[in-house]
């Protein structure tokens, strides 16, 4: 079932509050009306709330059929994330966080409902458009890093740029810039087996952002790291939002992250229990 985009939805601030939610980011969701417009039209008119929405989940339900039973991973989840915001999706293991991020990355699709990233509904994409969407619109960072073990740091970060129609020197410059940004300058020729866990995740972050995606999706990015290295990874993700206006969606059960994000969506047993903070709306 596919629903048309609805009217602007209210920002929910009710429900139990999370006291340490990042209150310093008064500039959150700063890029309203800029950046993420996957449609070709640009009227110059003031942006509507729909136009300022980076990711929208509408009545998203996902069930998996196994040999023995049907598992419900998500049940009528509806919320939207505004452009430029850093929003955490929080919940215990099995609550549907990874499934939700897979939907936003167009790596999985709803059984019913719809997922929109910008103006693009992921279920409606053909094969080529799907590849382009995954390559240009979203950047995914996995908890397990998923670096290619036979490629160097440089090679791993280069992967998203391979299909891009750019001159080789431009690609190389972007890769080197991304590697430098995550603090791995000088380690370009190393293999993943020669890096620490924190460095591996930094490479994964560099690979996730090197293609200049509008939306960065991070699935438990600090899950395999100690607190210091985890905080450094969160710093990198926040910088993507603050310095480059990217929308960042982080699936996590690390409550320390919540102190630093703009908004939080809470999942329980595949249902959205509440949202809190800026940049996240429910409907």
């Amino acid at each position, binding site marked *: 079932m596919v629903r048309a985009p609805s009217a602007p939805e209210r920002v929910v601030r009710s429900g139990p509050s999370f006291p340490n939610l990042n209150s310093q980011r008064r500039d959150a969701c700063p890029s309203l009306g800029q950046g993420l417009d996957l449609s070709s039209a640009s009227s110059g008119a003031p942006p509507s709330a729909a136009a300022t929405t980076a990711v929208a989940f509408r009545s998203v339900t996902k069930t998996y059929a196994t040999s023995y039973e049907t598992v419900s991973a998500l049940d009528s989840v509806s919320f939207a994330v505004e452009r430029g915001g850093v929003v955490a999706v929080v*919940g215990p293991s*099995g609550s549907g966080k990874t499934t939700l991020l897979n939907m936003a990355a167009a790596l*999985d699709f709803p059984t019913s409902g719809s997922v929109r990233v910008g103006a693009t509904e992921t279920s409606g994409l053909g094969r080529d458009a799907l590849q382009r969407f995954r*390559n240009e619109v979203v950047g995914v960072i996995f908890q397990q890093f998923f670096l*290619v073990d036979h490629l160097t740091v440089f090679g791993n970060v280069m992967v998203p740029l391979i299909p891009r129609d750019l001159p080789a020197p431009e690609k190389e410059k972007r890769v080197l810039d991304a590697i430098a940004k995550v603090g791995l300058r000088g380690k370009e020729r190393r293999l993943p087996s020669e890096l620490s866990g924190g460095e591996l995740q930094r490479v994964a972050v560099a690979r996730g952002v090197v293609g200049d995606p509008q939306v960065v999706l991070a699935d438990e990015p600090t899950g395999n790291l100690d607190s210091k290295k985890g905080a450094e990874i969160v710093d990198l993700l926040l910088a993507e939002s603050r310095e480059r206006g990217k929308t960042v969606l982080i699936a996590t059960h690390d409550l320390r992250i919540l102190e630093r994000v703009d908004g939080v969506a809470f999942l329980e047993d595949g249902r959205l229990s509440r949202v809190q903070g800026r940049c996240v709306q429910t409907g």
Partner: protein
Amino acid sequence: MVLISQVSGHLLTQAITAYDATAAQTAAVRSETTGLALSASALGLAFSAAVIFTVRDRLDPELRTYRATGLPATAALRLILGSHPVIPVAAALSAGVAAALVDAVLGLDPLFPLALAAAFAGSLTLWLSAHVLRALARQAPDRGSAGRVG
């Protein structure tokens, strides 16, 4: 092993010819060694299946990355063929060429080892292509994460 079978058959044939073996005896030796070479080929194909089985598990995380980054199948296949699966392919081709050279020097049939090496390399490459295409075109989550809903 194919080469060993061929060469040992060749040497044995030469040896018994020196002792005035009959044409029937020589033909019998050649038939036996051809059977041995065929058995070696079967072992080679079993080795090929084992390589495919091993490579499949190593490939899945890599393919997950390529799928998530929107890499086209051709580019993904090029990266994969330039990496670990090409090692057994290259080894098989090298062994085939070496065996064929020895065969040529000894006046034996070089097509046997070459055909076996080509069959091995071809089957592995074909299987890789099909696996990459299927993995990148998949609509559902990648293998290993389908049941993970956390």
